[in-house]
């Protein structure tokens, strides 16, 4: 099976800096920063969606993570000019990341179970707790029947890249979404407090991209926004509940970067920008150490983008947001960027992309 070139042809985003591409794009270019506010019903500060895109859906009782993911994936497909009813949808895949996932639905379900016992369990409420269900709702809403996967963490883009590159799918919608929930937020906040170091606050967000076989995109007249040139991945054996425990040497990140550059067949000197996965000083020191071990000191003269410093830690949406920030910041430059992502639990991945 021959290897295909892979381009990005669609963008969908809902973040603390904007809930559609024009507003997100403008905010990124302007260097805007999102504001912290207490999550409803708690005193925990986090970054929240700039528009309540889900308000009109709440009356229908939809599980919010699936609804948020559907809004953004639909934006991305529409941006790629793939519309409902298109025959192509049978071959359009979906790879979605989840981290805290359906924790809000799980909290509600478990509360009822504790208070009223197993015979009072509600089937629809149980279905909403399933970690795969937000992705299923995206697939059902948009009619996607291609290769589908739901992954914990943040490596959706690497898998989507692999599937398109090796001909398993001509088009894959990839991304992730994080809605947050009161109890999970409170536990996370306490973990940070216990760590004794300032760490990034959590954020609500969803971000999706459409990855497409370049020839396929050209045949249907889709515009390439960027090309994915290579990817790399590794892990550092961290535990999820020790998010401050990153390896100070950043060895896993270094392995992922090295593999991504080799896979893309480019030298470090060709990079015009690096998008950091870190959202705070502790993690950034480790990431910069990793980058220096591969790229040497020139990184000080490279353009460094720090999306999490401006809109928080969106967990499952972080890789997608990083990629979309890259496109917004570098559009029209032809620059090559290294886009890093890092998940709680120590999985790391890096993409090399050339922005059109």
């Amino acid at each position: 099976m021959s290897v295909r070139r892979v381009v990005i042809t669609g963008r969908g985003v809902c973040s603390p800096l904007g809930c559609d591409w024009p507003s997100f794009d403008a905010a990124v270019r302007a260097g805007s920063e999102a504001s912290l506010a207490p999550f409803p019903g708690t005193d925990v500060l986090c970054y929240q969606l700039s528009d309540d895109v889900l308000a009109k859906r709440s009356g229908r009782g939809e599980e919010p993570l699936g609804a948020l993911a559907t809004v953004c994936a639909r934006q991305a497909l529409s941006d790629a000019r793939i519309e409902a009813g298109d025959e192509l949808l049978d071959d359009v895949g979906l790879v979605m990341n989840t981290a805290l996932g359906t924790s809000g639905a799980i909290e509600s379900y478990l509360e009822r179970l504790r208070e009223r016992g197993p015979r009072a369990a509600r089937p629809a409420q149980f279905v909403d707790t399933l970690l795969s269900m937000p992705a299923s709702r995206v697939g059902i809403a948009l009619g996607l029947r291609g290769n589908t996967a739901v992954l914990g963490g943040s490596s959706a883009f690497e898998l989507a890249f692999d599937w398109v590159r090796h001909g398993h799918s001509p088009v894959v919608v990839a991304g992730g979404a994080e809605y947050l929930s009161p109890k999970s937020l409170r536990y996370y906040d306490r973990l940070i407090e216990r760590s004794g170091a300032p760490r990034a606050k959590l954020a609500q967000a969803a971000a999706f991209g459409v990855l497409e076989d370049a020839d396929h995109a050209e045949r249907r007249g889709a515009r390439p926004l960027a090309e994915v040139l290579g990817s790399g991945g590794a892990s550092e054996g961290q535990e999820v509940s020790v998010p401050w425990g990153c390896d100070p040497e950043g060895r896993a990140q270094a392995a992922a970067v090295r593999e991504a550059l080799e896979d893309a067949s480019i030298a470090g000197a060709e990079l015009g920008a690096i998008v950091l996965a870190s959202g705070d000083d502790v993690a950034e020191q480790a990431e910069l150490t990793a980058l220096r071990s591969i790229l040497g000191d020139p990184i000080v003269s490279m353009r460094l983008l720090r999306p999490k410093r401006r809109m928080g830690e969106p967990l499952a949406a972080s890789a997608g947001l990083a990629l979309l920030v890259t496109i917004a910041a570098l559009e029209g430059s032809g620059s090559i960027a290294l886009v890093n992502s890092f998940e709680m639990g120590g999985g790391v991945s890096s993409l090399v992309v050339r922005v059109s």
Partner: protein
Amino acid sequence: MNRDVYITGLGIISSIGTGKEAFLEGLLSARNGPGPIKGLDVEGYRIGRGGEVREGGVPQGEGRGLGLALRAANEAIADAGIERLPENTAVALGSGSGEMHAMEATLSPREDELLLDYPDPLQPPNSMTSKLAKRLEVRGRQLTFVNACAAGAQAIAVSAGLVRRGRADVALAGGVEILSHMVLSGFEALRAVSPTGCHPFDAGRDGIQLAELGAVVLLESADHARSRGAQPYARLAGSGASADASHVVKPDEAGAGAVLALRRALEDAGLTPDDIDYVNAHGTGTVQNDPAELAALVSVFGERTARIPISSTKSMLGHALGASGAAEVVICALAMRHGFLPPTAGFRRPIEGYEAFDFVPNEARPAPGLRNIVSNAFAFGGNNVVLVLSRA
């Protein structure tokens, strides 16, 4: 790079046997794993049955998922005869609900009673994978799939892709599921659990039996296996995935999504429907799933479907949700190595309209020379994964 991928190690811990020898004996004797649940307080449940692992050495509460994963992974490593895993070994697990006992402990209390100093409060499924990778001291990719009942199969499919394309020389891939109040109560609420037992492809089928298990296979490139003289169970020849895009719970009646996954898997393996000797079905034993799966098989295999042995091993193990697809790969690998067809246990009379089909009823059957096997995993929400195993 496009390398052959071999299965060279198997690890399994289940209600019908722990370790490949006991598990094989369970399959050959059509052992029935599920029964009244003892490890959880099931007072107040309508049914309270499931396939429990009753092996010592696995924690009963928090950490049970990791315990099952670690046990299965170490068995697979020992079975493969690898003394030291390469540092870039990939680790991939599939699970529907993950380390649910921990989530139940931390997320059940009221807001004013939260256990905020709980040592390890946030345990999404990827926490099992990261802890497993840490304990095995490997630093390759770690991947966690949560596609409900297709998760374990997809962990193996994607890991095989990593090995095939040279991203890893070795991968440990599989699935883990534990019985929990969340899962038991949810499936009972859905009226999906049979009060008597699981009877796939049977006219009187009335639901699943839930189960827990850990199943891990060791995948490696053919060159890597040959270089150390390893004997493969089978070659992971191909895989295909799809979505029904139809309904959050019900399968597409015509099995349209399953058909796409089956065709993609055969194409990936470079095979035609005529090349397949046995189908290890998803076969949940529910009223709606079994006919949808059979409709899909008929769409792909045509008239020949009635002559292909099709069995559901959930009739013995129960349905271990995200781990089931991985356990079924272990079963298919054993079937190929030992030349037998695993049975559909508890079979009474065939599902209407499929009377002429060969469901391998009740007894394992010798089948030397199996060449190619299809293993199906179809999940809630219409997530489908099909794997093809071939003789190495």
